[in-house]
Each structure stands twice: as C-alpha cells, then as structure tokens.
C-alpha cells in the first residue's frame, strides 16, 4: 500500500503542522516543532523516536489530552479541535506509564466500564467482549481483580479495555513495556489477528523494534519534534541495506600460491578485514559498487580456493532507526 499523503481520501488520521511548546517556570521545552503525517484506514503503523522526541505529546495531542499550540488534526475527516466529542468517539488508547485500569475491579468490570463510558454496552456486545478475552487469552482471568494479575495480564487488560470501545482508531503507547517474552509474543499475535480481522487503524509506539517490525508495515520516526522518516519498513530497510559481505574460503590441496592470497586480497580490496586460520580464510568486506564482489570472487577463483559461504549482513529496523536518528542529530555512526 503506498503511503497516504495529506488530503488523500484514504487518510483516516491526518496530522498537519503540529507544534507544542511546554512553558515551565524555568524554561521552555519545544516538544513538537513540526509534525505532519497521515495514517490510512486499516493501517498498523509504528510510531518511533528516541526519548523526548515528542511521540507521547503527539499522541496525546491527537487524543485531546494535550492542547497543541498550532496545527490541525483530523480523524475520519472530523476536526479534533472543532468537534472533540465526535473525534473522541473514534479513538481509544493505552497510554504509557499509566495503569489505564482500575485495579480493584475485575478484568470484565474494567472492560464493561471503559466500553460503557464510550457508549458501548457490554450486554449487547457480549460476544465481542468474549472474542477479545479469547484473542488476548484472558478468559480465565475475567473475574479476577486486576490487582491480582501479573504485569503481562494487566497490560493485556488495558489493551482489552481500549479495544472493547470498538473505535476505528487505537493508539498503543508502549504496549509491551515490562512484558516477558511470552506475553509480548502473545500480545503481538493478538494485535496482528485483530488488525487483519477487524481492519482497525492502529498506531503502535514502542522502543522495542522487534515489536514494530513484527506487527507494523510502516513506520513514522520522529526526532527532536520533527518527522525524520515516514516509509514502509521494507523501503526503509532497503535504504540501509549494506553491501557488506562475509566470505569464508577453505584452503585446499589445489590452491595456487597460498602464501600470497592474503596479500593479494589486502592490496586489491583495501577495506577488507581478513582473518586467517590454518584451514580457512575469513574475509569481511564492504563494497560501494555492487559489481565489486565479482572482482573478489574472480581473485579467489584465480587462487583456486573453495568458497565455503558468502553471507550478506542483514540490516534490521533497530539499526535503520539508530542510523536515521544519528544522522538527524549529526552524530557519526
């Protein structure tokens, strides 16, 4: 799916020119300098940024919990500033660092309450509530007070409460924070299932790149209050895909002039990092030109060595993210 652009009819959430400065007693903090982005209906996007980048302020501005200084936010074509009640009907969120639920109420009672204050009647939507409990593997805990649950279940209860509101747009701010690996995987699986079955628009903010890479197709990266990248994860990774290779060759009886192999490679490929053992030679090399690898292979062929393996260094979202943020901050990687 191509990224939606401002004014596209496919934009469900549209943020344009958002700015926010917090004025404290001693100093001003420019939390958001200029944030613009669009999210299409049914998209699950990752909202990334280092600490203090402005992620939470942006999310809270969209949700109406923070009043921005300027900029426009529309949800389903509704201006959030002009008609906050209508906009609120379309949004739900799990917010970072907050309990989000009442610990003295049970899982079911929390879902009932939070859905209820959004106009969703638990009695009428019982089947859907059961589906959420099943998807999030909370069936056995439905009548347990939240205070008696582990942090993983507490977090899943918060997600269930947000989803029970049946809003088309859901924000999940650090949904897997503090979860163990198993709970994190369960939650990710549940999110993917819900997104594919319900076509909800979900914005996930997380520091855990594995979570984002696993559940989202597109990421928006913000740094210093500005959007510094907005692309599909595949396109973003291809930008940072390096031509770094690791080639392992084994020495053998047919090898020509084994004593000069290392010298030849060092001279021909100055950037190569060579590690020689009695049986093998490991060559780590990065090319700027995609065809240079053929020159190296020809050299190895001339020496008649056996190539055991050629591996290309994989770039993941975390590396791409760090690279983008470093570039933005003017730090060499």
């Amino acid at each position, binding site marked *: 799916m191509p990224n939606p652009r401002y004014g596209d009819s496919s934009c469900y959430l549209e943020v344009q020119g958002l700015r*926010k400065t*917090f*004025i404290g007693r001693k100093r001003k903090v420019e*939390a958001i300098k200029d944030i613009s982005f669009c999210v299409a209906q049914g998209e699950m996007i990752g909202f990334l940024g280092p600490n203090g980048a402005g992620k939470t*302020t942006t999310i*809270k501005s969209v*949700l*109406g*919990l*923070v*009043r921005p200084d300027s900029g426009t936010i529309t949800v389903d074509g509704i201006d959030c500033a002009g008609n906050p*009640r*209508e906009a*609120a*009907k379309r*949004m*739900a*969120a799990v*917010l970072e*660092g*907050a*309990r*989000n*639920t*009442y*610990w*003295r*109420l049970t899982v079911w*009672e929390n879902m*009932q*309450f*939070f*859905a*209820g*204050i*959004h*106009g*969703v*009647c638990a009695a009428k939507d019982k089947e859907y509530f059961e589906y959420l409990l099943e998807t999030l593997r909370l069936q056995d805990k439905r009548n347990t*007070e939240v205070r008696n649950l582990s942090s993983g279940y507490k977090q899943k209860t918060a997600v269930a*409460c947000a989803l029970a509101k049946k809003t088309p747009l859901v924000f999940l701010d650090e949904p897997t924070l503090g979860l163990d690996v198993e709970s994190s995987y369960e939650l990710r699986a549940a999110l993917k299932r819900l997104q594919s079955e319900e076509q909800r628009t979900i914005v996930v903010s997380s520091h855990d790149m594995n979570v984002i890479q696993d559940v989202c197709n597109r990421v928006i990266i913000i740094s210093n209050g500005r959007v510094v990248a907005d692309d599909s994860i595949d396109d973003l990774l291809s930008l940072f895909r390096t031509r770094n290779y690791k080639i392992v060759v084994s020495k053998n009886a047919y090898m020509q002039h084994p004593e000069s192999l290392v010298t030849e490679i060092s001279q021909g490929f100055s950037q190569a990092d060579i590690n020689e053992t009695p049986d093998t030679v490991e060559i780590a090399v990065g090319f700027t030109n995609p065809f240079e690898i053929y020159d190296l292979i020809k050299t190895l062929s001339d020496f008649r060595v056996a190539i055991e393996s050629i591996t290309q260094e994989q770039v993941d979202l975390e590396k791409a993210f760090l690279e983008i943020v470093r570039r933005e901050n003017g730090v060499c990687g």
Partner: protein
Amino acid sequence: MWLIALKASWRQTFTLQIRYLFNFLSAIITMSLVFLLMFYGVRAVGAGALDLGGTLDGLFTGYIVWMIVLNGYQDLAFNVATEAQTGTLEQLYLSPVGYKWLAFFSGSLNALISLAMISVITAIMVLTTGQELHLDILSILPVYIGVYIQAYGLGFVLGGLALMFKRIQSFFQVVTFGVIGLFMIPWSKYPWAKYLPFTMGQHLLQEIMMKGMKLTKVQGGHLAVFAVVTVACFVVGWGLFALAEKKAKSMGLLGQY
C-alpha cells in the same frame, strides 16, 4: 451513549464502594465518634461558650451540613487527585461524554450513598444524645440535594486545582475546617453571611429538623437565596473546572502526578 455511560459510571462507582467497604464503615464510625466528642465537649463547657449557630441545635444541623459538604466536595476533588495518581484520569478524559459529566454521573450516585451514610450517622447521633429530630423527608431532601450541589460546586473548584497541582490534600484540610467557620458567622452581626455557600442550607435544616418547620412554610426569601446560591456555586465551580481543564491540557498536566 449518555445512558450507557451513566449506567457504566453508576455500576463502577457502586462496585468500588463495595470493594472499599471498610473505608465506608470506618467513615461512619469516625464521623459518629467526632460528633460525640464535640457534643459532649460543648455540653461540658456550656453551649454558650461556642457559638455553633447559637445552640446545641446548631451543632446538630451544622454537623449534618458539614458532613454533606465534606462528602460532596471530597467526592470530586479527591477523585481527581486519586485518578491522576492511579493513572486512570487520562482514560476518563478519552470518553466522548467528557470528564465533567462522568464526575457528575458518579457524583449523583455518591450523593445517594452519602445520604445513606449520613442517615446512619444521624441515627447514631440521635440515639446516643437523646436529641429529638423532626425527620420530614420531603422537606429535608431538597435541602440535602441543594447543599450537596453547592458542595459539588466547591468540589469542582478544588478538583480544578487538583488537576493543575495534584497534591493539594493539605489544602483540602484547610477547606474542611474553613467550612465550619462559615457556620459560625452570626447573621445578626454579618447579614451578608446568609449569601455564603452552605450557611442558608444549615439554617433551613435547623428550621426543619429542630423546629419541625415544613419547607413550604420557610420564608420565601430564604428559599430564593438558597436556590440562587446553589445554582451559582455549581455554575461557578463547573466554569472554573473547565478553565482548569483547559490550562491543564495546555500545560500537559493531565497525566502527571
């Protein structure tokens, strides 16, 4: 949507009351004990030494109104501070109904719960002191509702402060005792005192509960003052809370504690 939200709010308020039943029961015991201490203390030194509306009758009705005020304003103001502390305040603000209305919904049920609690305490007060009270429910109830609404107005003001400053519990204590001060101002010397919040409510309750007067027989002027003060308290409180909300959103304070 509004009806579903009202039902959800009432169900949640009631369930939490049940879960925190010990708090409810301990409030009844504490309030009864405090009254008894005051009552026997005042009687020991002589009612004339302390002007609580003039007589021991004043102490009775003053204490009842004080309990109504306390329950009314603390319901909202303490809730804002507690919800912010527990991290549910922002979730309530996400509701399309709006936080003010949710607070009002839960407040309406809390008013009934308070009425039950105050009735029990009043019964204990009557049984332990032998004081005779006229319990004309039809006359008492409108005054109770009016005073509770006035207290809710005060609650909105303090709730607004809690939104911005969060930890203002010590200020709540000042207000709690400040309210007692309002009942002590003699109208004969300071006629303007009748226009202050809660004072007319206390006067009306004294007329009804102590003298057996029906609400319909109360001076029209007094009823008008009571009605105007009730509306004014609520409107001013609601307005100031709306301002505080605006400021808190502007400063990004809703989620902080």
